[in-house]
């Protein structure tokens, strides 16, 4: 029982991270029809910025995290200016490869700036744990789940209740019609990249105390985020979050009970299976297929 609870809680907290990363590129996808393959590297950059703010600027952890997330919003906007804005009207393949190249550049640049050795980022709650059914659950896991829940609620309100969300949904449904109705495509694109950058930064600073600050932190989270988004149908926030939690729990359970050395394989195998059997995702997609 204690083993099951420990695996379940680990699964839910890593699943929350995957959800944050996935919500970032789903937001961009809704606004622009492009998938941002740099999303993972943005999360990595966020964790490095937090590490830099803590170790070099010697800020308090909470302030450092807020600074990192704020900077990541700007990085997201900058990424849009470089890789997406000049390529509007070109094939989406080209834009996707540009984001991929930008992601690689971020990772390589971080390797040069901070060396590729993994670093420790302290959790704002320290290393304390709480007991539950005999399992020790770190406070950091609880923090991850709580923050993710708040962000998801905020995003749902943003998408459903604000002018921004209404325009975003209009763009996702019919880009041409939305533009003819006066939706500012360029500004929406920039804003969506900014939000995605901030979400990635948040995912990075929450995940780094669990797995250490390393250059592949975000890339692995992004791959699992893809799996989550596909499982959830790519459109609905709720579907993506449920998909992410399923991926996280499935990964931990399979690694805990079947073969731990293949831990990273399970999410991808599940994802390919979903694409093979039910390409519209488990809950259907609200976005029509865009090429």
């Amino acid at each position, binding site marked *: 029982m204690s083993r099951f609870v420990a695996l379940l809680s680990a699964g839910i907290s890593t699943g929350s991270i995957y959800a944050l990363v996935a919500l970032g590129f789903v937001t961009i996808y809704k606004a622009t029809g492009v998938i941002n393959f740099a999303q993972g590297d943005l999360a990595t950059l966020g964790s490095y910025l937090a590490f830099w703010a803590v170790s070099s600027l010697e800020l308090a952890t909470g302030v450092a995290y807020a600074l990192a997330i704020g900077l990541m919003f700007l990085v997201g906007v900058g990424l849009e200016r470089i890789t997406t804005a000049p*390529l509007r009207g070109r094939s989406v393949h080209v834009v996707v490869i540009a984001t991929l190249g930008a*992601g*690689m550049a971020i990772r390589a640049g971080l390797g040069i700036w901070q060396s590729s050795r993994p670093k420790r980022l302290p959790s704002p709650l320290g290393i304390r744990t709480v007991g539950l059914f005999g399992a020790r659950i770190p406070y950091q896991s609880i923090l991850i789940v709580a923050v993710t829940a708040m962000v998801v609620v905020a995003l749902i309100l943003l998408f459903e209740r604000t002018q921004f969300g209404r325009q975003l949904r209009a763009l996702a449904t019919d880009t041409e019609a939305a533009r003819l109705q006066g939706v500012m495509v360029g500004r929406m694109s920039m804003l969506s990249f900014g939000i995605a950058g901030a979400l990635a930064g948040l995912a990075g600073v929450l995940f780094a105390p669990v797995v250490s600050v390393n250059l592949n932190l975000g890339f692995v989270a992004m791959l699992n985020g893809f799996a989550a988004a596909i499982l959830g149908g790519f459109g609905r926030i709720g579907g993506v979050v449920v998909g992410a939690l399923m991926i996280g729990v499935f990964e931990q359970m399979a690694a805990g009970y079947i073969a731990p050395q293949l831990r990273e394989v399970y999410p991808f195998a599940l994802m390919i299976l979903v694409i093979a059997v039910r390409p519209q995702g488990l809950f259907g997609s609200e976005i029509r297929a865009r090429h």
Partner: protein
Amino acid sequence: MPATEIVPTTPESARSGSAVPPAHRRHQLRTVVLVVAALGLIPLRYGGDYDLSIANLTISYAIAAIGFYLVFGLSGQFAFSHAAFFGIGAYTFAWAAHSRGFWIGLVAAVIATALVALAFAWLVRRASHFYFAIATLGLSEIALIIFREWTSFTAIGGEVAVPNDPTVDGFRFDSEFRMFWFLLGALVVTMVIVVLIERSPLRRESIAMRDHPEVAASLGVPIQRVRFVMFTLGSAIAGFAGALFASDQGFISPTSFGVGLGINIFLMVILGGLTNMWGAVIGATFVVLLPERLRSFAEYRELIFALLLVATILALPEGITGLRQAWRRITRRA
């Protein structure tokens, strides 16, 4: 299939299509002879073992990039799996050649890669563009973990020594110089296969499928089959190149087949130009030779490659081979 050529109408291909009539573009065997003759002069000028090892590496990558031209350039399939198929070829070769020798190993590598590619393509046949891309990304991650963990197939940590040089009739291609000629022969075989594909209806069917899948399907192009054939063929060529790479290097480890190689393969075909296979060859040469020229910037290598990829997409959408057409457009206007 109607007898008329379906002219591609995406902006990029339409522009290059108007500069060089397709009928001219496809007389490529002459170019194959010229390229091979030019490459054959390399040992005269650069005969050292080190220079030749660089040339050999370039040829292995060039073969893989030509395969990717079929997958991405000609049939527009956005696949990250090419590096993984390169690796599957290399590991299958190492496993089979260990007990059965070079030729059985080579054949096994090509067949195994083709089978995996076909099975995968069939499995995700209903996936749209992005889902296909993401599925291939998942496949390449799975392949990397299998290389590392399936130790009875590979070795501890996936690090395998491959002592198998090609032999023909008792003659061993055991030095860099001899291997160079063997690889050049393999490059010619690959190029001739691709030239034959480019002369066949498969070329125009692929282009039609890439640019207008619905129109192509309504005109009777079997788009699903074309997609399978091109993906399997291109990936099998990657497996072929991977086997040659393993034999030439004599040692393989999973790090050789990671995302880095996947990006480099994209860089090769995009930098060279997507509209014909020469772009793949030129791009491969560039990607291998550039770090040699920039050896004092070794730690910036990956950063330079990544920035180069973005810069190429932004500034040189048709790649290096597109420069000729661009130049022609400029001079005609003047």
